[in-house]
């Protein structure tokens, strides 16, 4: 079941207007899954080359930003014969609603995949509202 038509090129992140980079590196937009469960929202992001120490997660007002730093490893005294992908940092920003319990956000990285668990705040969990029959 090999899907050869898959888009495998990494997408380079677009610069925000009026923002300049200070690190001389390329920045890519990681692909993500955002899955909503009853009690939480899980964000999975493919960030190969990133570990727990090189990822920053910031939450400012409604903006959740994930940033992963990657130090390119270039083999010494070699020349690049085939180049199919670029190496660089990762950055992606999402807006999240106030329904998230900001103090309980958990992050982990495994095999280059970042996993963020954003628990829903108590008040935001879906509740069944009973409707009384006789008004």
């Amino acid at each position: 079941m090999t899907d050869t038509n898959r888009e495998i090129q990494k997408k380079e992140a677009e610069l925000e207007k009026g923002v300049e980079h200070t690190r001389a590196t390329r920045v890519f937009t990681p692909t993500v899954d955002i899955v909503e469960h009853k009690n939480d929202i899980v964000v999975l992001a493919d960030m190969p080359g990133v570990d727990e120490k090189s990822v920053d997660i910031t939450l400012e007002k409604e903006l959740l930003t994930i940033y992963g730093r990657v130090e390119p490893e270039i083999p010494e005294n070699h020349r690049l014969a085939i180049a199919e992908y670029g190496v660089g940092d990762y950055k992606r920003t999402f807006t999240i609603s106030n329904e998230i319990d900001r103090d309980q956000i958990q992050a982990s990285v495994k095999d280059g995949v970042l996993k963020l668990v954003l628990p829903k705040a108590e008040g935001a969990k879906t509740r069944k509202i009973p409707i009384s029959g006789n008004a």
Partner: protein
Amino acid sequence: MTTTYLERLLDPWREFDRMNRLLRSSPTQTTEYPAVNVWVNGEDAVITTEIPGVTTDDINISVTGNSFTLSGKRPADEEKNVQSYHRHELWHGNFNKTVQLPFNVDSEKIHASYKNGVLHVSLPKLEAEKPKKIKIES
């Protein structure tokens, strides 16, 4: 028989066909998953690839002569009780990729490591194919 310029002018359809063929035969930019970078020098080759979400047990590397094959799978995630997917971009499935190297590889000395979703394989050149310095007697 070669066609002269005049003949081509008189038969525009043939010219159209020729251009069409040219366009179709041009190399297409399709890269099979996963994308690889290959570094070489006179002694060895280093292949790196990004395969996030794949565990070491699911990676297979094999080498025959000068051809390097990488295969494996990224299993589908086991998210349970999903209410909705807001984004669903991650890729899952099997992959198989072959890279031809410019020399035959000493398969006994291959070294592979996998860290943070990045696979790093070093493939030394077969000793017999390395250049030998020839001493000149005077």
